């Protein structure tokens, strides 16, 4: 009998997602066995999603401070200084598992959730971006349904809530076929004096819930996100939340109106693990306790159990900690927007987290213990595939006979081609701040009424990190910063989205650890601290295995004057084209190898972070001096693709001649790092070249922009590319529409 009882209890905590040792630990913390409510509290707070149980020990590698850093990790979002007593706050968040099962709602609520994080800082959300990864779009059926629905969901939510979706990236590989990635980023603006914190100070102050009603939607979403996606948890459909962007829009307006007054001492978005997580975090920061009566929470369903109310992830809700006596005034403002604001509990002085139902205590645990999720340092082991892929030599593949055709194929590759099909479904102009719209190296969003703007980027390269997690991750930070710099922005800081497989697998843990080290190295070298982020682990399915290790970098930069705004397209025929940086014989990990030769192999191109920092400073300097007419990062697809993109977007041709001793395909399509393509007018040519020499940057005048609508590339007097602008434009502009329409 005792044995059977023990077995049943064991099932209870295991079913809740806790291990035997975790259960033992929590009973030690409590000094007794938990009841079902208390068990639910621990299960949620100690999940990877809330407690960062596997990733927290690795965060020590991050640089988190800097001269512009106002708020590092630990709040709803980080904050950076953009001069004039103004700040921006930004963060990204994953919504991978919900989007895999219910792509429309999964993606929509991802957008809504990250906007509320920004709102909780006291800021007005001024821009959204997203980084999406799917299987190949040419594949009809499930993959294409996911793509359409995710993009539709992002559009519906973002458009209705009135925050412009200004950019991001969409990438494709079979590695994401079973488990797409949907990471949403939001940027908010405020004055320094308007910053809010997620803190429950002042014993006796009231906890108020504002916004939506609480239902059973999104039950246990945090723990759902902390295990593999498989058939069994396809039943976790109840863990998918439903979004209401109209409610969110009202919430934004009402919250900002309340924040203007002196009523609110703390704010927290209700995201993963809902009321529970938001209130525990605010209490923990203040060193206080809280008590919450679930009977007071406005609900949309009947007979909800206390733990269901506590962990529901119903959307569009916020927690406000308001000064005692101001509750009615807060409610009046919400009422104006046809919303409610309801007192559900108080800040207490006993450090306990107490759940009541109609005044009767139904659960009581120390606040600190909920925040003290155990962490795991797991075994790391180099993935077996690296031994094979590192053996790759350029000689393993032949240079294609028709290089023009190869260029066209790369321009039509889903990673490279124009994503207008995607961006035109997003309102990217609402709020009237979008200076550079999606499709450029970085989105540029102005600060209204000021002569300055913010550069915003989201970048990743799963293939790079699969083939060399450390250098791959460093390369993404470097590329993000390059994208900022060529747009006229000084990189400030990053938010990171760590999307990985199951960390309990030693090869996956190795990828996680090495990627974090790589991106930390790059952040130090480029002075872009990490001010917050998100971890999404367990991205794997039984059928398709683990995703590529995919750290996603969201970066912001400061454009100090609107005169500095720079774009990649060529502006005038006759301008000179300058290549910065050395071109090496590097084909490994390239888009070219993947798309043309079907090989995901080789090592990631070398990366000299010192040279990278120096080159970026130089490029920013010449842009700020007004010496440059266009600037473009040389990235996926190499020189030929960068050249074609500048031509297509500028509707001009170009002729360039290089003098580099590398294979033809390395020259055209290799992805050697730290390279830029500029165009400058004849008047400024000497100044640009002289300054490069002075700074020790390799700069070569390689050709000129023409108006005869042809693109030619020569190397060592040999013609490699000679192609019409129209053919390139057609390949680049129509590829995605075609991919989404093909009937295979």
């Amino acid at each position: 009998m005792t044995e059977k009882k023990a077995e049943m209890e064991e099932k209870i905590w295991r079913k809740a997602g806790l291990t035997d040792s975790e259960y033992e630990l929590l009973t030690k913390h409590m000094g007794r066995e938990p009841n079902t409510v208390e068990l639910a509290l621990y299960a949620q707070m100690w999940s990877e999603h809330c407690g960062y149980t596997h990733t927290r020990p690795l965060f020590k590698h991050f640089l988190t401070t800097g001269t512009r850093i106002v708020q590092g990790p630990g709040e709803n979002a980080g904050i950076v200084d953009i001069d004039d007593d103004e700040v921006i706050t930004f963060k990204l968040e994953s919504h991978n598992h919900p989007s895999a099962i219910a792509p429309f709602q999964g993606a929509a609520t991802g957008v809504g959730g990250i906007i509320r994080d920004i709102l909780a800082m006291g800021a007005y959300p001024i821009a959204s971006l997203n980084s999406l990864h799917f299987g190949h779009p040419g594949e009809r059926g499930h993959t294409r349904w996911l793509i359409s629905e995710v993009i539709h969901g992002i559009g519906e939510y973002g458009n209705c809530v009135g925050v412009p979706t200004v950019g991001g990236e969409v990438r494709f590989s079979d590695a994401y076929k079973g488990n797409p990635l949907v990471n949403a980023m939001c940027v908010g603006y405020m004055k320094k004096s308007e910053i809010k914190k997620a803190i429950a100070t002042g014993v006796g102050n009231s906890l108020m819930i504002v916004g939506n009603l609480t239902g059973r939607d999104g039950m246990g979403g945090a723990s759902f996100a902390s295990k593999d996606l498989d058939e069994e948890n396809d039943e976790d459909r109840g863990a998918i939340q439903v979004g209401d962007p109209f409610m969110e829009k009202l919430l934004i307006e009402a919250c900002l109106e309340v924040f203007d007054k002196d009523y609110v001492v703390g704010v927290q978005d209700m995201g993963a693990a809902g009321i529970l997580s938001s209130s525990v975090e605010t209490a923990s920061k203040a060193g206080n306790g809280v008590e919450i009566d679930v009977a007071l929470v406005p609900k949309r369903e009947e007979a909800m159990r206390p733990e269901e109310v506590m962990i529901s992830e119903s959307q569009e809700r916020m927690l406000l900690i308001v000064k005692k006596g101001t509750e009615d005034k807060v409610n009046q403002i919400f009422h104006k927007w046809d919303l409610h604001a309801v007192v559900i509990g108080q800040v207490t002085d006993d450090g306990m987290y107490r759940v009541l139902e109609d005044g009767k205590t139904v659960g009581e645990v120390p606040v600190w213990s909920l925040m003290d999720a155990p962490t795991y340092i797991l075994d790391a082991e180099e993935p077996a595939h690296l031994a094979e892929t590192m053996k790759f030599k350029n000689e393993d593949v032949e240079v294609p006979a028709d290089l023009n055709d190869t260029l066209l194929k790369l321009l039509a590759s889903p990673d490279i081609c124009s994503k207008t099909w995607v961006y035109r479904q997003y309102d990217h102009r609402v709020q009237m701040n979008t200076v550079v719209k999606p499709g450029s190296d970085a989105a540029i969003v102005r600060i209204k009424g000021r002569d300055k703007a913010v550069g915003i980027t989201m970048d990743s390269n799963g293939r790079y990190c699969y083939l060399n997690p450390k250098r791959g991750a460093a390369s993404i930070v470097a590329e993000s910063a390059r994208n900022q710099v060529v747009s006229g922005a000084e990189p400030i800081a990053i938010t990171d989205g760590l999307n990985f497989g199951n960390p309990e697998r030693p090869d996956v843990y190795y990828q996680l650890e090495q990627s974090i080290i790589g991106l930390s190295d790059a952040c130090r070298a480029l002075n872009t601290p990490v001010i917050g982020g998100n971890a999404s682990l367990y991205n794997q399915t039984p059928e398709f295995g683990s995703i590529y290790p995919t750290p996603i970098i969201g970066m912001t930069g400061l454009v100090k004057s609107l005169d500095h705004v720079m774009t990649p397209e060529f502006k005038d025929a006759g301008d000179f084209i300058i290549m910065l940086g050395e071109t090496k014989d590097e084909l490994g990990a390239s888009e070219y190898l993947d798309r043309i030769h079907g090989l995901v192999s080789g090592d990631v191109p070398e990366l000299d972070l010192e040279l990278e920092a120096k080159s970026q400073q130089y490029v920013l300097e010449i842009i700020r001096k007004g010496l440059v007419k266009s600037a473009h990062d040389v990235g996926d697809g190499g020189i030929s693709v960068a050249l074609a993109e500048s031509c297509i977007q500028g509707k001009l041709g170009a002729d360039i001649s290089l003098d580099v001793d590398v294979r033809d395909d390395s020259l055209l399509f290799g992805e050697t790092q730290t390279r830029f393509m500029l165009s400058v007018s004849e008047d400024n040519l000497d100044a640009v070249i002289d300054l490069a020499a002075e700074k020790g940057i390799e700069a070569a005048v390689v050709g000129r922009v023409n108006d005869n609508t042809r693109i030619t590339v020569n190397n060592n007097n040999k013609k490699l590319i000679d192609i019409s602008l129209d053919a390139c434009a057609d390949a680049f502009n129509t590829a995605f529409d075609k991919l989404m329409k093909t009937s295979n």
Partner: protein
Amino acid sequence: MKWGVLLFPGSNCADDCFHVIDKVLGQPVTYLWHKDTDLGDVDAIIIPGGFSYGDHLRPGAIAHLSPAMTSVKEFARNGGLVIGICNGFQILTESRMLPGSLLQNQGLKFLCMDQTLKVDNADTPFTSAYESGDVIVCPIAHNEGNYYAAPDTIAEMEANGQILFRYCNPDGEVSNATNPNGSVNSIAGIINKYGNVVGMMPHPERSSDKDLLLSDGKGVFVSMLKHLEAKHTES
């Protein structure tokens, strides 16, 4: 001249319109609240774009029943200038202040892009800053912008010069190929037969600020201001 921007829950473009009147035109402007029937002393009303009431039921279907709209109708009957942009246009057709209705885009997708428009009739209080035949760039951003009205109504509107803007290509050519949403006769903006109420799907406010490298749409507000000032001088 005082301008009013009508604010519904979900009016995402209200601040943008306010910004253009305030900062670009330098004119006094105030928000009008949907629950109020008192419009104050405004000389022109902008019904901005967005998703009033979350587009629940149908775009504009709930907003047109709000208390403020009763007063807007009265204001228009007395000759006041009213312009509805995007969702504002949808609200004006729902309230029958303008003929026709706005269906879902032919492509069944939301469309946000910088669109070229041909000015069809420059002889109105909303378009006098242009010449007929001018081609201007004005962003669109809508899911329900496919203008439809019965053939007789369209014929009458065409005859009366009630079509103000049509979607076109950069050379000013109007054809099915340049029609982004399937609107009848590529109609992008119309005026009522009394010449004081306009609805348009494109966003002139979004191309009114030179810092955003688009300023063709400013002519709409400049035209309105000119008209109001002339009327003011007369009286």
